[in-house]
């Protein structure tokens, strides 16, 4: 028998149903929701700004250790003497003028239950949602013989700044006829085409100033980003550049700073200048927040960038496991916007939209020789996945005018993105 609702019962049911879904909204409208963003690089600074645009009512605090940000993209040009470090550096004045509270401190801990972040200043920040964007840390236990002290003699230069200048000074001090060795790590790591752009620009520096010198790239991989384009260009421009892949015994298994050698499974190489790009992991605060898994990186929901391990915390940029997306400034910026819109939606009680994300990486093979890779990504089965047929790489048989144009575009890209994030 079907029970018949009286008019009074029907009203009760309706009101009951409505109150359940409407109650959270007035609560949010009264107190501005608080979002804390930890990390002021491309990912974090972009998230803070995109969030400000998405919903100006949200109170945003950006936590960053350094008052000056030094950008990694284009820093290979600094190493090769093609540009100066200040061209890589940006302050936070405009971000803070835009209504974002910028706090210069390092985050020392996160309490996901209480929803607070502890800072090195002793201050505690409450949040409704936390965005963690710490970039990378070096795995100091990842390569025998390599540690923080050794990095002062065999620089990684994989975080731009003093390390970048150190590698440049070593190249400048090396005599003509010397051997430079770059050790490239296995995947995943920050900026997949980075070691090869660096090899190209160092080879350019050697060719133009120390032509009897040699450059060897020891690689823990057989395949890398834009490989055909790089290798074709090397064959044409840099006869003194030798690339040794994994299957040719290129994986560096230990380094010896005293002997200035790098050892692989099948040989030992002596370097006058050694640039060791070591294995990496998500920045330290991700670990403290409990959002890294056994890989050292952070698993996320590909639509909202919310951690799969700790609810209420989102991870963007190099620290995140973003499926097919490379760890790049462009990716970080794209993820930041998608994450910001998702966070704004979640705080307003709306369902976040499914994003489509774009990445482009420019690399310089020489000052007037640029190449690109572009990709489009969307969430498929819980992972950010390459959209087949979208994106691609520069043509392999393009005339020099195309390469020169792409080098110009690269410059334009850097100006545009740094202006969008910091300007």
């Amino acid at each position, binding site marked *: 028998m079907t029970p018949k609702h009286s008019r009074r019962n029907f009203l009760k049911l309706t009101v009951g149903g409505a109150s359940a879904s409407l109650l959270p909204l007035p609560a949010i409208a009264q107190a501005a929701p608080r979002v804390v963003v930890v990390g002021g690089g491309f990912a974090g600074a972009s998230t803070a700004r995109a969030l400000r645009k998405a919903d100006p009512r949200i109170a945003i605090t950006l936590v960053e250790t350094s008052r000056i940000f030094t950008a990694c993209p284009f820093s290979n040009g600094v190493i090769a003497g093609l540009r100066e470090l200040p061209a890589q550096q940006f302050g936070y004045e405009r971000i803070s003028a835009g209504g974002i509270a910028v706090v210069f401190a390092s985050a020392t801990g996160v309490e996901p239950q209480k929803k607070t972040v502890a800072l090195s200043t002793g201050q505690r920040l409450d949040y409704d949602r936390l965005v963690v964007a710490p970039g990378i840390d070096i795995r100091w236990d990842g390569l025998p013989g390599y540690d923080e002290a050794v990095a002062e003699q065999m620089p990684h230069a994989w975080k731009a700044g003093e390390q970048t200048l150190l590698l440049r000074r070593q190249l400048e001090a090396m005599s003509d006829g010397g051997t430079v060795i770059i050790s490239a790590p296995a995947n995943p790591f920050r900026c997949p085409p980075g070691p090869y752009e660096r090899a190209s620009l160092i080879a350019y520096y050697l060719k133009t100033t120390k032509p009897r010198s040699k450059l060897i790239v020891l690689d823990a991989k*057989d395949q890398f980003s834009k490989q055909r384009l790089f290798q074709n260009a090397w064959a044409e421009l840099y006869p003194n550049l030798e690339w040794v892949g*994994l*299957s*040719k*015994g290129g994986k560096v298994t230990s380094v010896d700073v005293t002997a200035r050698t790098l050892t692989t*499974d*099948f*040989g030992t190489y002596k370097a006058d200048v050694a640039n060791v790009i070591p294995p990496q992991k998500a920045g330290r605060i991700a670990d403290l927040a409990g959002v890294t898994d056994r890989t050292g990186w952070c698993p996320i929901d590909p639509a909202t960038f919310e951690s799969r391990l700790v609810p209420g915390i989102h991870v963007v940029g190099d620290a995140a496991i973003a499926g097919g997306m490379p760890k790049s400034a462009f990716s970080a910026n794209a993820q930041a916007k998608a994450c910001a819109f998702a966070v704004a939606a979640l705080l307003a009680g709306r369902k976040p939209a499914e994003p489509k994300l774009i990445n482009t990486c420019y690399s310089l093979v020489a000052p007037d020789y640029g190449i690109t890779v572009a990709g489009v990504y969307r969430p498929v089965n819980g992972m950010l996945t390459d959209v087949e047929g979208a994106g691609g790489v520069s043509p392999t048989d393009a005339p020099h005018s195309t390469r020169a144009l792409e080098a110009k575009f690269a410059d334009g890209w850097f100006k545009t993105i740094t202006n969008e994030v910091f300007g």
Partner: protein
Amino acid sequence: MTRALINVPSRARRGEIIAIKTLISHVMETGFRYTTAGERISRDIIHGFVATYNGEEIFRAELFPALSANPFITFHTVATESGTIEFRWTGDNGYAATESAKITVE
């Protein structure tokens, strides 16, 4: 020409345990893949690896389609006497490759 890399210490003390490393470039095609035209790509793997020390077998391995391209095999042995350590890889389609290294034991 063999596309193999080997690492055998050139000198060792008698009785010393030494590490030996080998890496051979090979596609290790599983036989389970298809072309875009739907044709099966036939299996092409290395299925056997043997190392001998002055003619005596010291290590043997059977390899299967699950193994990645460019098999890297490393093992240990005891340096007993001066001589030659030989390596032999055999595979599908009559594939065979050999490599050797001299060792002085004192």
